[in-house]
């Protein structure tokens, strides 16, 4: 138990070391990532990395240089001597040859340690991944340990800070999570003064570059700030590790509740900075990091531009490792707090509202809604609320062109505002000037016009409509006519009320329209999901599932799409209206193997024709969906719908796969069972007559002289009958193997039932000896079109069965008749005990033998073969027992009779009589 003093004790250095060394032993097959981290170029990261590589190589590890910057410094280059270096992959891009890291060569070479410079590098177009850190991720997944280098300015979360410090926008950014996941981070630090010195000596860039670099980037002030950033990043990491160790070693610590930071963002341009600040806060608190966007159903429809910006913000948040959610609720603070409480959020970050004059006096009048921040603070309770000053990010183009865009888009609105005013004025004119109505009536008409415009067009159009209406009313219906001057001051009130009414109505109308639109789009999504679910429920095979999915995706995104399913370890495209060449298949394969999206619009193989998304079912990836949609079609909303559809498809595919697996497994078990039964049955059934024959033959040989004639004859008869039995058994086995080897090939001939029954009886002459065989075949039979050999076997097996299961000497009846439905019926009836109750359907199963008083003989194949042969002829074979009190089984063969009986040329009997 920890004592009080323990609580405040520093962590035990030994335990700390133990934990670190425990952390360094490879816990899984995944490779380990070591990052040499610095504040800027020139601190000696590559040098340190190569030194470390040499040390490892000297220890006997398999070390390979995957990529080192081509403009390498001479003293660094020396370190490469004696190390294996992978050749560059040369990529042609816009006439230039770019030298890139060769991922596939590295994966094939698979060294123990691989050095790859510049973690934040952006790959040339056409390579598998857009970013090098994804290459490295794949290397690590392949179990290769990687050394790499990184400058602080490339970290996504400090990107904005660096830009503010240095004034230089850094384009190549790296998600913080990559550094956070690194197993080891080594800070390479030099003082800013030394760095500037190195730069002057030309150790970092060539002199002319160095001159420019010094001015722009490498001034001491910048470097100090960058150094602080780098140190802080590493310090935070060390701090986090410390806490992790404390937690692990069980030291009591007040970390029972881990922090959760919730960042509320919107389409506003300031939100990007909000996300980065929030991320930094979360990192410093080592807290979870949630980003939400609240959509209010009452709000006006966002412009395309806003939607795209929001899209970017959400993606940035995802890149920074946030859990991103879009909420829907009319009351923003309430929705936000509700979500925060449900998710144990401890801190909420929101943007500080820009001060607006108007809101000041509106609030003074008690009309304005209180700001989000105020509302949140008032109701947040235990949750801390941070209001952060948002700033517009420079990569966001100004809004001006947006309003131009909107104005252009809305010219129809203004046109209809003008048209509406003209129509109302035309109707109003005679009312006032001819019939002398009061002008208040005309005013009502104008209001109606404004409402009509507001119902169909934007708010600005409806404001325009109300302004035009006021002007027209003043001009045409208020004395003095045809001037904008007014004689009565009371009209000012009229005008104001009209204006306010118009704005209010248009606001309300727009809100209702927005809600209707949102409802419609939700309804559409639900409908699409429902339709797919219906189609999938009706689909049994993967092909049907693919067809249904592809059809819905095509109609939803109005683009060709494809579904690839995994079959025998290769991807098979189903329903591909666009060309699936090897390259596209390769992209799809990558997506499947890594369970990640790939292709167009992603960071992996973006040159592909289509976007490939893995179909992830509970038990793993079952296929890939390819969608050649344009990137702007794939909004978050569309992606969410797509995710839902893909989950449905994936689950259906998995269900189909499992069904197929279960079926083959069952078939395998069944055939295994059959084989075992057959083997044991055959060996037993063959051995019995063989034993008898062997025994009898040896008896006859040894004691021939001592046996009298009648005994000798009896013994010889037994040999003959046992041999006959073996022959029947082998015939059945042959018939069965013929059936199994692809069914019966029927060689049909026209014949009479007599041609079947009489040879069958002749075959079993000795077996049926001593029995009365009653054959009842009425005259005038049709010809049957059957295979004589197969049908004879059917009858032989039925007669044999009758002989086996009825007492010796009891009669057997064979009756044939033509049924009214043009079928021929042959019954074989015995006087044995009949079929045991419940076994009527099983007697035709292979290896089924009805238990009788005596030991059942035979393999239980005869009836199964008979049934298969009759069914092959399009007939049926059934069995029933004789009605009580009689006993015996009645087998009934029903065969179809051909309507077109073959014709035989007639003869003239008179001429020919003998």
């Amino acid at each position, binding site marked *: 138990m920890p004592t009080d003093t323990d609580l405040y004790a520093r962590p035990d250095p030994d335990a700390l070391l133990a934990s670190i060394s425990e952390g360094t032993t490879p816990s899984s097959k995944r490779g380990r990532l070591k990052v040499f981290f610095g504040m800027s170029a020139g601190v000696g990261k590559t040098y340190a990395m190569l030194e470390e590589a040499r040390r490892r190589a000297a220890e006997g590890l398999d070390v390979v240089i995957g990529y080192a910057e081509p403009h390498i410094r001479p003293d660094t280059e020396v370190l490469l001597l004696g190390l294996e270096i992978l050749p560059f992959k040369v990529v042609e891009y816009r006439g230039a040859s770019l030298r890139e890291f060769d991922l596939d060569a590295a994966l094939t070479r698979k060294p123990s340690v691989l050095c790859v410079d510049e973690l934040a590098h952006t790959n040339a177009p056409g390579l598998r991944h857009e970013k090098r850190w994804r290459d490295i991720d794949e290397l690590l997944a392949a179990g290769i340990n990687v050394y790499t280098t990184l400058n602080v300015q490339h970290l996504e979360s400090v990107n904005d800070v660096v830009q503010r410090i240095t004034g230089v926008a850094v384009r190549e950014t790296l998600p913080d999570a990559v550094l956070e996941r690194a197993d080891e981070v080594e800070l390479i630090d030099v003082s800013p003064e030394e760095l500037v010195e190195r730069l002057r000596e030309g150790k970092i860039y060539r002199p002319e570059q160095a001159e420019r670099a010094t001015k722009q980037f490498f001034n001491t002030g910048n470097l100090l700030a960058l150094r602080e950033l780098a140190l802080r990043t590493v310090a935070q990491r060390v701090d986090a590790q410390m806490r992790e160790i404390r937690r692990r070693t069980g030291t009591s610590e007040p970390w029972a509740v881990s922090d959760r930071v919730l960042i509320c963002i919107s389409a506003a341009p300031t939100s990007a900075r909000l996300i980065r600040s929030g991320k930094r806060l979360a990192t410093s608190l080592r807290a979870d990091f949630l980003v939400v966007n609240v959509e209010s159903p009452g709000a006006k429809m966002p412009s395309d531009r806003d939607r795209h910006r929001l899209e970017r913000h959400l993606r940035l948040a995802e890149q920074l490792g946030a859990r991103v959610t879009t909420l829907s609720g009319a009351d923003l603070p309430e929705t936000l707090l509700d979500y925060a409480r449900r998710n144990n959020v401890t801190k909420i970050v929101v943007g500080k509202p820009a001060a607006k004059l108007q809101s000041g006096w509106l609030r003074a009048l008690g009309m304005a809604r209180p700001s989000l921040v105020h509302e949140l603070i008032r109701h947040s309770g235990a949750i801390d609320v941070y209001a952060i000053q948002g700033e517009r990010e420079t990569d966001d183009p100004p809004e001006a062109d947006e309003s131009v865009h909107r104005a252009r888009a809305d010219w129809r609105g203004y046109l209809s505002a003008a048209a509406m005013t003209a129509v109302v004025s035309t109707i109003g004119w005679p009312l006032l000037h001819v019939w002398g109505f009061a002008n208040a009536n005309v005013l009502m008409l104008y209001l109606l016009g404004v409402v009509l415009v507001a119902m169909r067009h934007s708010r600005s159009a409806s404001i325009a409509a109300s302004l035009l209406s006021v002007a027209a009313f003043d001009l045409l219906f208020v004395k003095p006519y045809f001037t904008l001057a007014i004689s009565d001051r009371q009209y000012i009130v009229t005008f104001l009320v009209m204006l306010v009414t118009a704005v209010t109505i248009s606001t309300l109308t727009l809100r209702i329209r927005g809600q209707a639109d949102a409802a419609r789009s939700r309804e559409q999504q639900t409908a699409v999901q429902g339709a797919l679910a219906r189609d999938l429920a009706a689909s049994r095979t993967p092909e049907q599932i693919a067809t249904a999915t592809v059809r819905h995706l095509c109609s939803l995104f109005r683009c060709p799409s494809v579904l690839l399913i995994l079959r025998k370890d290769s991807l098979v495209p189903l329903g591909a209206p666009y060309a699936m060449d090897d390259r596209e298949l390769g992209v799809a394969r990558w997506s499947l193997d890594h369970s990640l999206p790939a292709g167009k619009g992603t960071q992996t193989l973006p040159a592909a024709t289509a976007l490939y998304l893995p179909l992830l079912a509970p038990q793993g990836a079952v296929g890939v969906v390819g969608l050649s949609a344009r990137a702007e079609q794939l909004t978050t909303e569309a992606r969410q719908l797509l995710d839902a559809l893909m989950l449905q498809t994936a689950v259906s595919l998995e269900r189909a796969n499992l069904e197929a697996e279960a079926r083959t497994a069952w078939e395998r078990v069944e055939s295994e069972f059959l084989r075992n039964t057959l083997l044991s049955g055959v060996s037993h059934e063959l051995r019995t007559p063989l034993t008898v024959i062997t025994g009898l033959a040896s008896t006859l040989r040894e004691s021939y002289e001592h046996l009298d004639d009648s005994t000798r004859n009896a013994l010889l008869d037994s040999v003959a009958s046992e041999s006959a039995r073996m022959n029947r058994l082998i015939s059945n086995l042959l018939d069965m193997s013929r059936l199994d080897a692809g069914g019966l090939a029927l060689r049909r001939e026209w014949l009479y039932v*007599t*041609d079947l029954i009489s040879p069958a009886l002749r075959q079993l002459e000795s077996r049926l000896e001593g029995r009365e065989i009653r054959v009842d075949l009425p005259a005038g039979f049709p010809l049957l079109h059957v295979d004589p050999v197969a049908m004879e076997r059917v009858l032989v097996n039925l007669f044999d069965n009758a002989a086996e299961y009825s007492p010796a000497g009891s009669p057997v009846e064979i009756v044939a008749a033509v049924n009214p439905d043009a079928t021929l019926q042959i019954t074989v009836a015995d006087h044995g005990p009949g079929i045991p109750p419940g076994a009527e359907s099983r007697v035709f199963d292979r290896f089924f033998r009805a238990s009788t008083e005596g030991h059942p003989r035979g393999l239980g194949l005869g009836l199964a073969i008979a049934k298969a042969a009759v069914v092959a002829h399009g007939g049926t074979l059934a069995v029933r027992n004789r009605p009580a009190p009689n006993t015996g089984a009645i087998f009934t063969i029903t065969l179809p009779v051909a309507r077109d009986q073959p014709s035989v040329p007639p003869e003239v009997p008179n001429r020919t009589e003998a």
Partner: protein
Amino acid sequence: MLVVEDEPPLQKFLRTALETNGYDVVEAANGTSALRHASNDRPDLVLLDLGLPDMDGLEVTRRLREWTRIPIVVVSARGQEGDKVAALDAGADDYVTKPFGVPELLARIRVALRHAAATQGSPGESAISLGDLNIDLANRRITRSGEEVHLTPNEFRLLAVLVKNPGRVLTHRQLLHEVWGPGSGNESHYLRVYVNQLRQKLEPEPVRPTLILTETGVGYRFRSD
């Protein structure tokens, strides 16, 4: 008697059975030596297994038929009805199906030898008597229990072919050729109809015939005593 058989136990069994019944046996284990023995030793009959290691039994039959009318009895297994028919149509005289008993084998051999003698010498008996049935082919007169039986020309021709080959199997094709001429080889239903008519007119119990026997998948055989 030339026995063409490649399985030693069967060879031994056939030699014993035949020698016990007074035939001399020459053995051949494959088709080539069978053809050589047939021309050198001039046997009275060839007992030929259809399954031989070097040559199809059917091929041996054809080669023999190129130069000799020597009777051939074919030995084959059940389920090879097509092979049997082919061998018979190629000129074999009869067949036995494995497994077979010695009496059956001897009966086939006797029938084949008798048939060979008949074709070489005088035409066989033209009048036979089977129980209460009398068939006089020369006078075209058939009586059953003393009463005359009327046959159509085709019925008569069919009966005549069968009676002239007592105990010998005749394939559908052979019978059709004899009765309806060489143009008809596939209309086996003619045979079914006429055999049925003959059975109705001649057999004491037509549903369990004893005169004209069906050889399933092969043809018909007229009873011999």
